[in-house]
């Protein structure tokens, strides 16, 4: 990435420099979201989708993958709360960090094929409120996730940055799930 050398000396103004460290990740995240949206809008949707054996349609494949991602995202929130000691009478076990990292990786990697499929086969669409919201949030999710990943290794960012970014990613993902998989299951039934 860009130069992100941590100043070894004490920062002259912790608040401003801390916030300053969020600028580049935020710009990159915005760029990611914008790129996905522009691609989805300009690229002519193929309608062609790769189905996975055992599922009745690509819609179900995507709905289940999105559900898996959302379940892991819930694990994310719970493990984060435990990690930061926000749940009373629960002390963080030693493996909580590993759980948090791997549930996040799985959720992200499971969501990627769904997004590719959406953008490639269906594109950024606006033909109904649900679809419009889903299209916007779908692009925003990967932007928000990029921001979160990019500020994660940084030292000296404000304390609220990671929780806010994480909460944003989680909220957007849940909203995505409701505008897609939940709608799909409630419309066509819950099966494979």
């Amino acid at each position, binding site marked *: 990435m860009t130069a992100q050398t941590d100043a070894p000396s004490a920062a002259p103004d912790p608040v401003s420099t801390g916030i300053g460290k969020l600028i580049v990740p935020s710009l990159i995240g915005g760029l990611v979201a914008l790129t996905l949206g522009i691609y989805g809008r300009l690229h002519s949707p193929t309608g062609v989708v790769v189905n996975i054996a055992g599922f009745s349609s690509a819609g179900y494949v995507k709905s289940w993958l999105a559900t898996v991602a959302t379940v892991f995202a819930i694990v994310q929130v719970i493990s984060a709360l435990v990690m930061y000691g926000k749940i009373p009478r629960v002390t963080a076990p030693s493996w909580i960090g590993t759980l948090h990292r791997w549930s996040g990786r799985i959720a992200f990697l499971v969501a990627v094929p769904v997004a590719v499929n959406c953008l490639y086969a269906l594109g950024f669409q606006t033909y109904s409120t649900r679809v419009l919201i889903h299209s916007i949030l779908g692009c925003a999710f990967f932007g928000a996730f990029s921001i979160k990943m990019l500020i994660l*290794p940084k030292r000296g960012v404000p304390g609220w940055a990671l929780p806010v970014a994480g909460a944003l990613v989680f909220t957007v993902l849940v909203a995505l799930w409701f505008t897609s998989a939940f709608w799909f299951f409630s419309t066509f039934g819950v099966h494979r």
Partner: protein
Amino acid sequence: MKLNTPLVTLLAGLVLGVGVLVTSAVWGSGSSSAATPAGNPYAATSSAPAATTAAPAQSSPATAPTTAAPTSPAPATAATTAPAQATAATTAPAQATAPAAASSGTNAYPPKADYVGKVNGGGAAVAISVHGTKAVAYLCNGGAVASWLRGSVSAGKLNLTGKNGARLSLDYRKSDATGFLMTDGTKYTFSAPLVHRVPSLHRQPGLYEATATVHGVMIKAGWIVLQDGSQIGSVEYDPGSAFPPTAQAPVLDLSTGTAQYDGVTLVASLISGLSGSGF
């Protein structure tokens, strides 16, 4: 140096995404010619009149002549581009509700008839078009439910089937068609009256269909125009897929027979058992 694992995660996602994209592109180019031979012509034309020539994605049991039959009744396009092996009746289907001379007398069931009506409970509408030995039925709720069914006729009874196990069973007479339709696990019962001509309407009550390619994806809209001139319609996105996403159809302009969908003009064609258009 410590590994920047979040960055690795991001890059892994990027690699995975590109991988899935390439797989989709390769898989898609390989299958579009084999699995859906009619797919490419649609992708090439986004003009609505061309899109109304046929509905190839629909895997109806009908034979080749009938799939070619849905010539456009669009008044704007006087000369339809489709190979018009259709009869004269298809050229003026809008004024189609000619007297059902064939069904005169005491015949309990008419050989050609169109029925429209709301289902019991009113949550959806159903249209049934019977033309000789063939029949088409459509049910939609103006939202996510849309089901097309086809099949053959046997002496006043219809047993039609559609996608995903949808089935219809009814008895039809000169007055109405009474039965039930199962789709997506829901059972709709109905008693749909025979369509009567309404002089004040440019487009008569009945079943209308339009297909078009919008932003590269085929859509199929169906409208049921009820006897009072009101309408209920749903549009299926990518109707060839197993479970097409379905939503409310745009309003069908009954004076022009067209509708606007995402900037594309849909030209609706009547599926009438009486006139034979759409069969």
